[in-house]
């Protein structure tokens, strides 16, 4: 295992400390329990947005704490849901009196831990559960679909709504709407290695790729021969369209997201392929984002997300944001 680390046990603490020091103007951090909160704490009268999940998906979520997005992020161990004590401490730190909105990716562990935190927290809370990954048919099992890259879009759009003063119910409803309007599917060319595990999560041949991979290196739809970028874009967009069924009139947000080990050059190339596929299908790409936002450690690969934006969602997407990983008009 080749990583820029000291000891396997300290990866998370040291990385978090580095994040806190690099962005001391934006966030405060705590290492016990592990927590990233917006500088200055809760904003009075504003719904507080708290997300979290296993680490290894950076910049998600800590990179999205700041003006116009999250109020706090709870980083779990690598690929492991955080614990309720983190969520409770986050809630106490950023509660502005208008309620807490948990933004949770749909994994059994995350759901249960946030659920326990919600039960323990003394104050109004709501949860937006993201489940945008169209790779796994929900009919196959009762766990439902996984939450992946569209979580970033939910956090941005709902973050802007909270910032302008929307109440808890409105934020929750908007988050559900954005999630329902989104579909994502990803592929992996290589595996990732959980530091503490020390060996790759899965084996994959030199001419294979995993179609529909999860953001923890979980298998997806199937193991296939390496595909060209154009074919990948076609396969992913096809699967997404089957789920969210966009029409030619919809304003779409296209996110081409890197898994961590794929360089920008390839992401822009895949974005170009995706734009071509969108064009052929008569889809209207109104907003775009290309980069590493919801990653899987050093895995090589990418995902494509499409979100059908209504006018309000588009406005909120465009609204100012100032976080470590997403910043505009501020």
């Amino acid at each position, binding site marked *: 295992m080749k990583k820029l680390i000291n000891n396997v046990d300290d990866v998370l603490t040291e990385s978090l400390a580095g994040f806190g020091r690099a962005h001391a103007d934006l966030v405060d951090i705590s290492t016990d329990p592990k927590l990233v909160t917006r500088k200055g704490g809760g904003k009075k009268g504003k719904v507080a947005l708290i997300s979290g999940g296993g680490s290894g998906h950076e910049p998600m979520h800590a990179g999205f704490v700041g003006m116009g997005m999250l109020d706090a992020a709870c980083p*779990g161990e690598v690929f492991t849901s*955080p614990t309720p004590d983190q969520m409770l401490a986050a809630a106490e730190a950023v509660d502005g009196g208008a309620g807490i909105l948990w933004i949770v990716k749909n994994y*059994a*562990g995350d759901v249960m831990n946030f659920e326990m935190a919600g039960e323990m927290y003394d104050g109004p809370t709501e949860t937006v559960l993201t489940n945008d990954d169209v790779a796994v048919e929900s009919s*196959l*099992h009762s*766990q439902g679909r996984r939450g992946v890259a569209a979580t970033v879009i939910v956090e941005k759009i709902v973050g802007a709504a909270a910032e302008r003063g929307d109440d808890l119910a409105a934020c929750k409803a908007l988050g559900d709407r954005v999630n329902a309007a989104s579909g994502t599917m990803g592929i992996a060319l290589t595996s990732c290695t*959980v530091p503490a*595990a020390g060996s790759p*999560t899965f084996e994959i041949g030199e001419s294979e790729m995993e179609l529909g991979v999860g953001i923890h290196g979980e298998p997806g739809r199937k193991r296939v021969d390496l595909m060209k970028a154009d074919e990948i874009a076609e396969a992913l967009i096809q699967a997404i369209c089957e789920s969210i069924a966009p029409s030619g009139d919809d304003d779409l947000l296209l996110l081409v997201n890197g898994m961590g080990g794929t360089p920008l050059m390839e992401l822009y190339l895949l974005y170009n392929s995706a734009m071509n596929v969108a064009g052929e299908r008569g889809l209207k790409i109104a907003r775009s984002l290309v980069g590493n936002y919801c990653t899987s450690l050093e895995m090589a690969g990418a995902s494509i997300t499409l979100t059908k934006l209504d006018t309000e969602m588009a406005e909120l997407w465009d609204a100012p944001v100032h976080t470590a990983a997403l910043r505009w008009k501020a």
Partner: protein
Amino acid sequence: MDEATLIRALVAACCATIEEHSGELTKLDQAIGDGDHGLNMSRGFKAITAEADALAAMSLGDALKKAGMTLVMKVGGASGPLYGSLLMDMGKAASTAPANEADVAQLLRAGIDAVKKRGKSDVGAKTMLDVLVPVAETVAEGGNVDAIRARADEALEATRDMLATKGRAAFLGERSIGHIDPGARSSALLIHAVCNVLEAS
């Protein structure tokens, strides 16, 4: 064995087996999950080891509740809330120390109900429940420690051919078949450890 000695022995045995098999649990979880089950369990049981003195000073019921809360707060993932709920609700049901097999069976049932509720799941989904539930049956039937251990092993092995419909393994669909479930394995390990302690006492 008085209650304090028993609690100490249980803590020691459970923590030891988890520590010893942590690599194996991680490997199992790499096959059909995300490869952290060994680390999760080890983190949780190390935290329990650290509070062994405090636990030994409590009643069995309070010790179970406290250990459960520690798992909830330290483990994360799916196994934290699930094992945490198991112990916490066992502890709640153990207002008095269990006197016989029937008491133990009732404890276990209470804990298992909490797991089912928290995990929105039941037997047959290829999870820890597929070991815990059969074992509880054997306990209720008055089976001795040998019978309990045998039932746990059998039940564990039976998860191999199951299709996962809960937890991360569910995302694999058909590909989850052919591997035993990591949580079922950790449950079997814990049951063995508990049986060994009871046998020695």
